[in-house]
């Protein structure tokens, strides 16, 4: 029962849009339901980061702690987006803090579990990597825009 619910939830999420059903079935095995309270950390910089999160509802702040400044939010992630890509590459450690700004409902996907399945089925790996690359590229483009400091005083 739970598996069917997860499948539906995954299939409905923009990140997994058009992922062929056999792959969805494979991925579902690595899924767990998670809920975060407002203010709760989802992951911390430097911690083992062996999950990525498919955010269904709520808002997450991706932060960097800057000495003398405090935590600086560099991006917020909302329902419909994904959070975390450090599971893809060794040493699988989170590079930023992620903190729930309000009640966050998400599906967490186990990195080790996924990596094993991708090694076994490169097609699945390719499908997932395609989607992640798109996410990373779009974040990079956004970051570049933010870097331009367009609203700043030149």
């Amino acid at each position: 029962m739970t598996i069917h619910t997860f499948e539906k939830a995954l299939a409905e999420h923009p990140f997994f849009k058009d992922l062929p059903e056999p792959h969805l079935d494979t991925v579902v095995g690595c899924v767990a339901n998670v809920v975060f309270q407002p203010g709760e950390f989802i992951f911390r910089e430097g911690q083992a980061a062996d999950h990525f999160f498919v955010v269904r509802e709520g808002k997450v702040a991706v932060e960097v702690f800057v000495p003398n400044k405090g935590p600086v939010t560099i991006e917020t992630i909302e329902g419909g987006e994904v959070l975390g890509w450090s599971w893809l590459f060794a040493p699988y450690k989170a590079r930023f803090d992620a903190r729930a700004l309000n009640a966050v409902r998400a599906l967490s996907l186990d990195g080790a579990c996924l990596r094993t399945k991708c090694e076994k089925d490169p097609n699945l790996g390719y499908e997932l990597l395609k989607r992640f690359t798109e996410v990373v590229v779009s974040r990079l483009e956004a970051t570049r825009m933010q870097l331009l400091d367009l609203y700043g005083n030149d």
Partner: protein
Amino acid sequence: MATTDATPVVVSASDPMRPEPFEVRHVTKETGDTFTLTLAPVAGARFRPFAPGQFNMLYVFGVGEVPISISGDPARPEILVHTIRAVGATTRAMQKLQKGDWVGVRGPFGTPWPVDQAHGHDVVFIAGGIGLAPIRPALYHVLLHRALYGRVVILYGARTPRDMLYPKELREWRSRFDVVVDVTVDRATMEWQGSVGVVTKMVQRSPFDPQSAMAFICGPEVMIRYAAQALQQRGTTDSSIFVSMERNMKCAVGVCGHCQFGPWFVCKDGPVFRYDRIQRFFGMREV
């Protein structure tokens, strides 16, 4: 000619090259480098009705003159409102103005936002930084005639929460049931519970009908380019996108040549342009 009385007698200017005197009634500090002047005509000068998106040339005695968009309510032209960012000699001099000081005003000039053309459509306002100031008169107009329009969406991006323009009004607009307001900043500290990211991301998730919506965009040119792209990706046609341009201006009436952008004079063919008409030049360097 001034007499010995305190108030000089002034001719009403039919000469758009001569500034008329306005008095500062109120100064509001908005953000670190941005402030709003509320002006009223004095000494026989007359207020002039304006259309949203138009600008005046504002003159500080002995310093200089700059083009500044009108950011007040077009339904109340007797109160002239300008939100100004201090970036040069003249605007820094304006920053020092106090209640009672005089400012020279000539205008209004320019092609306005096509608020009438948008009747029956969803209207999406996309503003970045001080770009919210030239958008605000159009917003006032649309909200005053709310029933004539479809969904009204305001997407606003600022540098940090402290650099947001008109935060009180943004909250008021957001509290209306018939307006969607989405605000994002480039970076923030812990107190900010809102979005951090780029305006383009807001376009992607915004609730408007891309096929019929009209978009009014104002902000840095780079932001306009990416916002227009995000709109295009959602299916909005370029002929439904309107942008406000900025160029060096000296005369504001199309005879000094400074504001040329390709074949157009931004002072009279703009500052508001339909995006499909200018898109070719928009992507070009140093035009």
